[in-house]
């Protein structure tokens, strides 16, 4: 499994290094604005970092999905499927790689955000930026609390939900590449399957009672998402094992 994992990480390494490079450029813009007391530059840097963090975390899942798709639909898949590894191991390595990448990317951007906010709030003149930010958040939702436990629970819940979405996309892609391979309207059926599964999952997540409190709800939703991701993984691997030809 570790060997499979090593190669899964290697397959997406280049794109991740590019993302890291872009993040450093945005951070440099932010720091130049901060130390040069140029408010516009600082805001551009902060906005860039915010969007890169969002896109970066989304990218971890998309890269994993693209790799699976390529492994099932191009000759490169022979490298993987001719090795003495079961589909459960092969897909397991992909899910773990995606989970690790999401976790590391989440931790990295969270740490960078904390660092930058600490720098920002270290200057009295910047307190008003934080106040403005919290006012905007509260205008959207009064119940949102911006402290470390709430933000940590929110990040956990979001990462777990994203992992669940990625495994749902795995399942849809495997159905497309195995059961529906070569059939007309393959992609439409696959896309509809993905939408229906995601709708069902989102409905399931709303069953967690809000009365439990924000942190508990977020944590429970995260756990449910991880369990569902596990179920998607088992079904997908079984389908690959029985029906996939590369």
């Amino acid at each position, binding site marked *: 499994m570790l*060997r499979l994992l*090593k*190669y899964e990480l*290697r*397959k997406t390494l*280049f794109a991740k290094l590019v993302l890291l490079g872009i993040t450093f450029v945005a951070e440099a813009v932010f720091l130049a604005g901060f130390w040069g007391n140029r408010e516009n530059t600082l805001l551009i840097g902060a906005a860039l970092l915010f969007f890169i963090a969002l896109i970066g975390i989304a990218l971890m899942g998309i890269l994993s999905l693209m790799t699976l798709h390529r492994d099932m639909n191009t*000759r*490169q*898949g*022979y*490298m993987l*499927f*001719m*090795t*003495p*590894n*079961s589909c459960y191991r092969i897909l397991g390595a992909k899910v773990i790689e995606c989970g690790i990448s999401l976790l590391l990317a989440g931790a990295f951007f969270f740490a960078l955000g904390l660092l930058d906010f600490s720098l920002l709030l270290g200057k009295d003149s910047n307190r008003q930026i934080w106040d403005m930010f919290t006012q905007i958040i509260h205008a959207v939702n009064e119940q949102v609390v911006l402290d470390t436990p709430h933000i940590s629970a929110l990040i956990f819940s979001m990462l777990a939900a994203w992992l669940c979405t990625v495994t749902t996309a795995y399942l849809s892609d495997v159905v497309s590449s195995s059961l529906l391979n*070569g059939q007309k309207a393959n992609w439409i059926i696959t896309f509809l399957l993905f939408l229906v599964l995601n709708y069902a999952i989102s409905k399931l997540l709303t069953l967690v009672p809000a009365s439990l409190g924000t942190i508990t709800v977020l944590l429970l939703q995260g756990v449910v998402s991880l369990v569902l991701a596990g179920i998607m993984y088992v079904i997908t691997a079984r389908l690959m094992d*029985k*029906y*996939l*030809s*590369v």
Partner: protein
Amino acid sequence: MLESRELTKKFGAKTAVDRVSLKLEAGHIYAMLGPNGSGKTTWMKMAAGLIKPTAGDVLFAGSPVGIASRRDVAYMSTEPYFYLWMTVEDAGKYYADFFEDFSMERFLSMLRSMDLNEKDKIKNLSSGMVAKMKIALTLARDAKVYMLDEPFNGIDLLARDEIRTAILHAAVPEKLLLLSSHLVEEMEAIADRAIFIRMGKLIEVRDLEEMRETDGVSMADRYRAIFGHGEVQA
């Protein structure tokens, strides 16, 4: 050692392999012969466990092919299948990581004899160089079965000699070699048995020595007789 029973593969309306029953034994080099689209590659991919049959079975040592058989069956596809970021050496390390029977030392020695540099990026290699590297990777395994799909494709005469030598070196009594090729004359110098396939159907399996003695024809003559005129001669 390797057996297919009523093996069938359909792609939509097209039947690529049609109820092929074959029994291949260790100690022989089989040439799988037939025109384009006759089902040779599809049969091999099913035997390698890469393609699921529509019907029938492929057995290795009496058990259906799968994860266990991949440890003992070395398959070389005719198409390049390597990750683009790999160097020749990376491909060797990949095989070493996944196949216990792979010898890095043997691989490097074969690379040297074929004038290949292990530090070269695979994406920068010519098709002939990739073909040689595929052969080196596959034959550097100490497998029980070697299946080489079109091993001479895109390879110049001198390199063909090197590959032929490498293949003959791998042929020992306890191993089974199966090769497919359009180059019938080339195969005649290597194989001792021939499998003729046309339009997905098995025509016959012949022992070449016996065929030469009893029928007085070469493998190439037999190939022409089967595929050249559209009629199969008994």
